[in-house]
């Protein structure tokens, strides 16, 4: 079927010129534009991280002053959270893959899709312009009352986060409408690939949590500019209210980050085990369960912020609930691999890395969710290590795995497998070297967000700094691997991994502009590997 139409040009070459990209309504091109932008900001945020680690090579002033250190970790956090990891998987891979997996010609609202990309770009430019007003030093959480009184471009950065929220909301609206209304004939809810379930659950959170952040940020701007007395204690306001509002969004946002990662892993594990997924419905429902529970646990960020003890206990108990659906996923993935014919190709290695690092990140989350232990660990490097294990070790490993998995589909090129394997090894080694020691020093009381430390912590900091260079090199090497393939890579067949979802079985690599020559009809589940024609 595919061979008959080889003469039709792919989405990459069917239209030419810069404006055919800038004004494209094609979800695949928009996904690629997101991917490039997100990667750009990932390396910018990474550069700030390297500078932070260099400063921490020795106690006291090493390369920057205390104030600049505060600005660096704020920029690192704000860029990585708002510009990289929240839009990351859904906006880039989700945009590219979701309509293909559904057998649709595009997302439901292509214009809104393009608009969300430009809102992202505008938000990013506003965020960067805050550097010229004066870099902010509040941390990415913008806690009041400090954020009302400190100098620098707080208003600009907060406004940027507000703008970026709209981009996130529009992506979410688009994906939910697409999943509901544009599934191929025969594709029931339980024949959808699990990637879609994960992105769908993410979209629910994007829609329900982001508006609350939006109003919080508006209130913060108004508080700072007009002093209305909502958050400012000097005027009768309540600074803890800001924390409640902020985490009501930002904890669900943590699952905006991790759910798409889990979504990618579900695809990788099954494809590279060549075995039907174990517990399809359990994994699908666990995504929704995580989305729901995510709205009930925000108070665990505030165990030491002046909540009542009872509220703290309730939030602590609810927090442990998250471990159940997360565990359901982990065990089902492991059971999927059991007796599968596992191939250790690069995407699968990223997934293995995810397993290791996410397990550590998830389990240390249980430490922090325990009320009494959190009092000791709160605001130490233990927390820093925990969320980096989940966000980088979880989400970003999955993101990289997804990029390597769908790269042949996106570009039509195969990358060098040896280089791919080495990039995983470098990243996993570098990551553990950087962050595992942070658990140790955090447990011993090294507080986060200080540019100075006691001598006893120096060895840990130096190991961490060495690790961060290795980690940075690993990510650089991954990107080089991909870029080299563009020029020297072999031409990718339509289905190099022998996967069973529509984007591999029903269209060429890369796909044509309208995705499919004929409307695909769904007659089976997404992981029936024995039913795919060997010729494809």
């Amino acid at each position, binding site marked *: 079927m595919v061979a008959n139409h080889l003469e039709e040009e792919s989405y990459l070459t069917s239209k030419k010129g810069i404006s055919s990209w800038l004004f494209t309504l094609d979800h695949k091109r928009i996904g690629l534009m997101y991917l490039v932008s997100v990667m750009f900001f990932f390396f910018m945020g990474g550069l700030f991280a390297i500078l932070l680690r260099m400063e921490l090579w020795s106690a006291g002033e090493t390369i920057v002053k205390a104030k600049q250190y505060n600005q660096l970790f704020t920029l690192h956090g704000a860029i990585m959270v708002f510009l990289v990891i929240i839009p990351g998987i859904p906006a880039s891979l989700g945009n590219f893959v979701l309509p293909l997996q559904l057998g*649709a*010609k*595009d997302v*439901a*609202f*292509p214009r*809104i899709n393009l608009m969300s990309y430009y809102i992202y770009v505008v938000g990013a430019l506003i965020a960067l312009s805050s550097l010229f007003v004066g870099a902010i030093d509040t941390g990415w959480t913008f806690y009041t009352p400090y954020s009302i009184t400190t100098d620098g471009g707080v208003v600009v950065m907060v406004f940027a986060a507000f703008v970026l929220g709209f981009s996130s*909301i529009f992506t*979410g*609206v*688009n994906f*939910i*409408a*697409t999943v*509901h*209304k*544009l599934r191929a004939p025969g594709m029931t809810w339980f024949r959808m690939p699990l990637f879609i379930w994960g992105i769908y659950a993410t979209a629910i959170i994007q*829609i*329900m949590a*982001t*508006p*609350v952040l*939006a*109003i*919080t940020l*508006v*209130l913060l701007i*108004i508080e700072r500019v*007009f*002093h*209305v*007395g*909502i958050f*400012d204690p000097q*005027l*009768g*306001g*309540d600074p803890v*209210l800001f924390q409640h*509002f902020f985490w009501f969004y930002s904890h669900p946002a943590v699952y905006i980050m991790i759910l798409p990662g889990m979504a990618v892993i579900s695809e990788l594990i099954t494809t590279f085990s060549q075995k039907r997924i174990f517990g399809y419905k359990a994994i699908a429902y666990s995504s929704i369960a995580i989305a729901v529970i995510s709205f009930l646990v925000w108070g665990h960020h505030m165990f030491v912020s002046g909540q009542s003890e009872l509220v703290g206990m309730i939030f602590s108990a609810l927090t442990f609930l998250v471990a159940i659906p997360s565990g359901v996923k982990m065990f089902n993935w492991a059971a999927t691999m059991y007796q599968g014919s596992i191939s250790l190709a690069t995407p699968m290695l990223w997934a293995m890395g995810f397993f290791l690092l996410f397990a550590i990140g998830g389990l240390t989350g249980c430490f922090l969710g325990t009320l009494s232990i959190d009092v000791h660990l709160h605001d130490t490097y233990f927390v820093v290590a925990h969320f980096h294990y989940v966000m980088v070790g979880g989400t970003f490993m999955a993101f990289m795995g997804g990029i390597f998995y769908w790269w042949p589909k996106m570009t039509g090129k195969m990358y060098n497998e040896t280089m791919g394997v080495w990039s995983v090894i470098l990243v996993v080694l570098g990551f553990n070297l950087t962050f595992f020691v942070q658990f140790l020093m955090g447990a011993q009381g090294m507080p986060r967000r200080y540019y100075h430390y006691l001598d006893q912590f120096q060895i840990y900091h130096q190991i961490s700094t060495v690790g961060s260079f290795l980690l940075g090199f690993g990510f650089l090497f991954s990107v080089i691997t991909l870029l080299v393939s563009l020029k020297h890579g072999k031409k990718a067949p339509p289905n190099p991994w022998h996967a069973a979802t529509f984007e591999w079985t029903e269209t060429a690599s890369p796909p044509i502009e*309208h995705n499919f*020559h004929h*409307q695909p009809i769904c007659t089976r589940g997404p992981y029936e590997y024995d039913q795919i024609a060997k010729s494809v």
Partner: protein
Amino acid sequence: MVANQITKPNFPLADHFDSPEQQVDAGKLGMWLFLATEILLFGGLFVAYAIFHNLHPELFKAGHRYLDVKLGAINTVVLLFSSLTVVLAIHAAQKNKTSMVALNLVITLVCAVTFLVVKYFEYTHKFHAGLLPGYFFTNGEIPAPDQAHIFFGIYFLMTGLHGIHVVIGIIVLLWLLVRSLKGEFNEQYYLPLELGGLYWHLVDVIWIFLFPLLYLIR
């Protein structure tokens, strides 16, 4: 591929949809999702209202006496009436009465502008009386003048955000008016009218909650 599409002659079907019904359903679902985000956006302010009302009930009782219930009531009626005319515009489109679509949209727009004019007079009065948020509060007659600004902070935040939504609504209604004057809406295709109408109803519904919460405290 286009051959597979089920088309209607007067319905501009986007080429990634298979049928007009699919496009209409997707559009409505998208709009409802967007309205949910709007309610959550205001939800933050309603929570702030609840918390501060709980902390300082006396400030709210004292503060609301400085709001003009009559003007608030007039605005409530104006907005409710405009919701009716939006529905009538959709109804007219379903009957292919193009000029009635435009007429009803114009009446809706007049209502929206009236609302803002009344709001302008209310705001002007507050500015002159010094009944303003935070540092700008200068009124000395009100009981507990050192804290009364909290009520007016909430008042201006809630009505201000709602006012911005009225302005956006006016832009949407103008856009619909232009399209209806071009004769784009007919018995088959009136989806934009429905979507714009949904948005306008939401703006009304929020005001229905704001009016008693701010003006009618007992």
